[in-house]
């Protein structure tokens, strides 16, 4: 099969059974790869209603279809499992070269189940698959782990966890090539399996259906991207390029645990300030001609020697604005701690912002915080707390559970300060002023998430793809909008394409690329139909795991408290608006009002069984 490694690798860490099976032509046709394969395999292989840390919970790694085929930004690989944070869909996509390496080794997915009796790492060298002892690696941070495995195994690509994953921090991530599958806690699932790392070496050719056409298309896409009007600013300042704009023009940059929508102390965390001062060069994910990453280096002062690939927009929010921290060097330091310890920067920053809010409101004391003064803007305390979370020490042990569980444990009315949807901490969009994005937070199968729709791009600018003149402050028409965006955007995860290139491909741009890679022809409608199937399958999974209509709820800070100042002053999402948008969405999806896909819809999508 052109475009594919051809096999699925099954590894049971408990019994040490390793088997392979061919990828069927039907599966390739109907799910293409990446998230399509991963969601299908998770649905089929997981034992319903088991805890995320149960050995039976499968951890699946699946490279997007285009991984390794030189498609610009097409280097994304997905990790997929039942999330220990939300109990729902735990899919998280990263830009690391391990996806392509896996295809070169002959695999389109790896399904890891069971629990190893002792710490181990999985070594895949083409046909050879081995579980190796990781006793010496357990406890080590991410960069040291990668270095040690490379010195032992030679030229392998490594995806690994840090101490946070080992300690079952519920938002621990997986790292590869200084990029992370951060969200939803796949790193903790790896930790629960005693699996420190996956190291892959693949040497086989990937053979495209039409090499000449593929080369021509990819040269053209590189040219289109690099000649686009936004290219210079996007690559010079990265994903945070619009940070000042979303504050000053839109007033939707959630600040101090969502108290405000404008961060007054944002000067230093704006990339227009820090990029010229700290960025030594641009850094790209594997296969990407549009580098959003920056080699951020601090040469002097208390953080001298720091070098990270960052700082990404979401992290400027979570470790910056959300915690009221305007000191960019300490935000960079926090970014470094999260990367080294293997934690999602978004959830980590949000949970600290939550603790700061509780501290300022007298719900937790200095004593509870182990002597730390947790006022907003206290960067020293923030950094100390990050370490405590990763090591599960003191208050950090409670916060390592995520905002939802931490609020339950702390009690004392802390729930009204807990900002999460379905147990997932939110990204950097104050949805009180971006109504469609509020709906997207609700409908996402992994909880509050910006990347299952990229609706912020449409809502904040008013236009994207086939939409124009969209009003971010209106709740009208959002059901169909979010449904259609979900079905488009999931295809980027299926094909392994970055959403930072979302303004280029859309569905139609994928047609010729899929044809040149695999030889298969798809219409735009068929591509979106696959997207709809994958999203329905995700929904069937989360329903099976116990999600109900009751879980579609926005936090009190969003439904009860208007944005106090700035361009979105006075706005919030009322309960009525929330329910209206949800009703519209369920209708647009062909689901009933309990969020359950109807038999008719499942038949139409071929998902009846």
């Amino acid at each position: 099969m052109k475009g594919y490694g051809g096999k699925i690798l099954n590894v049971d860490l408990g019994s040490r059974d390793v088997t392979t099976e061919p990828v069927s032509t039907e599966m390739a046709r109907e799910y293409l790869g990446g998230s399509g394969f991963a969601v299908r395999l998770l649905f089929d292989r997981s034992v319903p209603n088991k805890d995320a840390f149960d050995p039976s919970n499968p951890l699946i790694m699946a490279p997007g279809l285009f991984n390794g085929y030189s498609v610009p930004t097409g280097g994304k690989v997905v990790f997929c499992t039942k999330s220990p944070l939300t109990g729902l869909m735990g899919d998280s996509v990263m830009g690391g070269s391990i996806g392509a390496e896996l295809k070169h080794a002959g695999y389109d997915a790896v399904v890891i189940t069971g629990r190893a009796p002792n710490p181990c790492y999985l070594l895949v060298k083409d046909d050879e698959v081995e579980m190796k002892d990781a006793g010496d690696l357990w406890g080590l941070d991410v960069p040291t782990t990668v270095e040690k495995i490379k010195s032992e195994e030679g030229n392998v690509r490594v995806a690994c966890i840090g101490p946070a994953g080992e300690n079952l921090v519920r938002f621990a991530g997986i790292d590869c090539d200084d990029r992370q599958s951060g969200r939803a806690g796949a790193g903790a699932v790896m930790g629960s399996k005693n699996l420190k790392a996956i190291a892959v070496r693949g040497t086989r050719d990937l053979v495209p259906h039409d090499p000449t056409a593929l080369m021509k298309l990819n040269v053209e896409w590189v040219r289109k991207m690099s000649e686009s009007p936004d290219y210079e600013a996007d690559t010079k300042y990265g994903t945070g390029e619009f940070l000042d704009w979303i504050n000053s023009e839109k007033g939707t940059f959630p600040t101090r645990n969502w108290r405000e929508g404008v961060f007054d102390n944002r000067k230093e965390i704006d990339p227009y300030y820090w990029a010229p001062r700290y960025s030594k060069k641009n850094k790209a994910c594997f296969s990407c001609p549009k580098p959003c990453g920056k080699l951020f280096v601090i040469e002097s002062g208390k953080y001298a020697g720091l070098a990270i690939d960052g700082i990404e927009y979401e992290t400027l929010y979570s470790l910056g604005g959300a915690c009221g921290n305007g000191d960019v060097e300490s935000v960079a330091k926090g970014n470094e701690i999260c990367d080294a310890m293997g934690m999602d920067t978004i959830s980590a920053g949000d949970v600290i912002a939550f603790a700061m809010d509780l501290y300022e409101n007298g719900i937790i004391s200095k004593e509870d915080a182990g002597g730390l003064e947790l006022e907003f803007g206290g960067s020293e305390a923030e950094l100390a707390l990050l370490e405590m979370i990763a090591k599960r020490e003191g208050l950090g042990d409670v916060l390592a559970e995520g905002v939802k569980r931490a609020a339950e444990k702390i009690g004392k009315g802390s729930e009204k300060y807990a900002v999460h949807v379905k147990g997932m901490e939110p990204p950097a969009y104050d949805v009180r002023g971006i109504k469609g994005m509020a709906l997207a937070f609700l409908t996402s199968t992994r909880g509050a998430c910006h990347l299952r729709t990229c609706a912020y791009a449409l809502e904040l600018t008013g236009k994207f793809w086939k939409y124009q003149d969209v009003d971010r402050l209106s709740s009208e028409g959002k059901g169909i909008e979010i449904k259609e965006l979900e079905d488009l955007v999931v295809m980027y995860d299926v094909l392994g394409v970055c959403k930072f290139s979302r303004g280029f491909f859309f569905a139609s741009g994928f047609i010729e690329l899929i044809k040149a890679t695999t030889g298969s022809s798809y219409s735009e409608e068929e591509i979106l139909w696959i997207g709809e199937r994958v999203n329905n399958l995700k929904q069937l999974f989360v329903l099976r795991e116990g999600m109900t209509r009751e879980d579609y709820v926005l936090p009190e800070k969003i439904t009860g408290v208007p944005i106090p100042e700035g361009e979105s002053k006075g706005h919030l999402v009322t309960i009525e608006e929330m329910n209206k948008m949800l009703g519209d969405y369920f209708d647009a999806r062909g689901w009933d009002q309990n969020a359950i896909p109807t038999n008719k819809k499942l038949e139409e999508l071929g998902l009846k069984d």
Partner: protein
Amino acid sequence: MAKAIVPFPEICTGCRLCEMACSLKHENVLNAEKSRIRIVKKGVRLDVPIVCTQGNACEQECVEVCPVDCIKVVEGPAIEVVEEECTGCEACVDACPFQCIWMKDEVAMKCDLCQGDPVCVKFCPQQAILYLEGSGDEREKKWKEAKALAGGE
């Protein structure tokens, strides 16, 4: 001096599109093992393109050392391997001071500049590899810098 590909490691983002483009162009497949340009990565700081200087910064050791004279300075700018004549002895691989000759299916493989229109350069919008003419010194400095950063001898 003839044109050649010059690396700028201080600009290279490490995306490795050049490797993929090279193998696709020369072999009709994608495989970094069959690329004539390689990105050496070290930690978060270093991404270093390694590519043949076409004799501009070396003594053409590969040409000298080849026992069957199958590495030739061809018409145009490149030093090329005549694959049919290569015996796979790897003498050139050992001799290359920039470590930019590799083996593929027991035949030596090196950059041939794509007949004067190198595809890797087209794939790199960062301009971290440039196809440049030059009088020697500046280009030589970049090749030697890349070699030192990548840890070559």
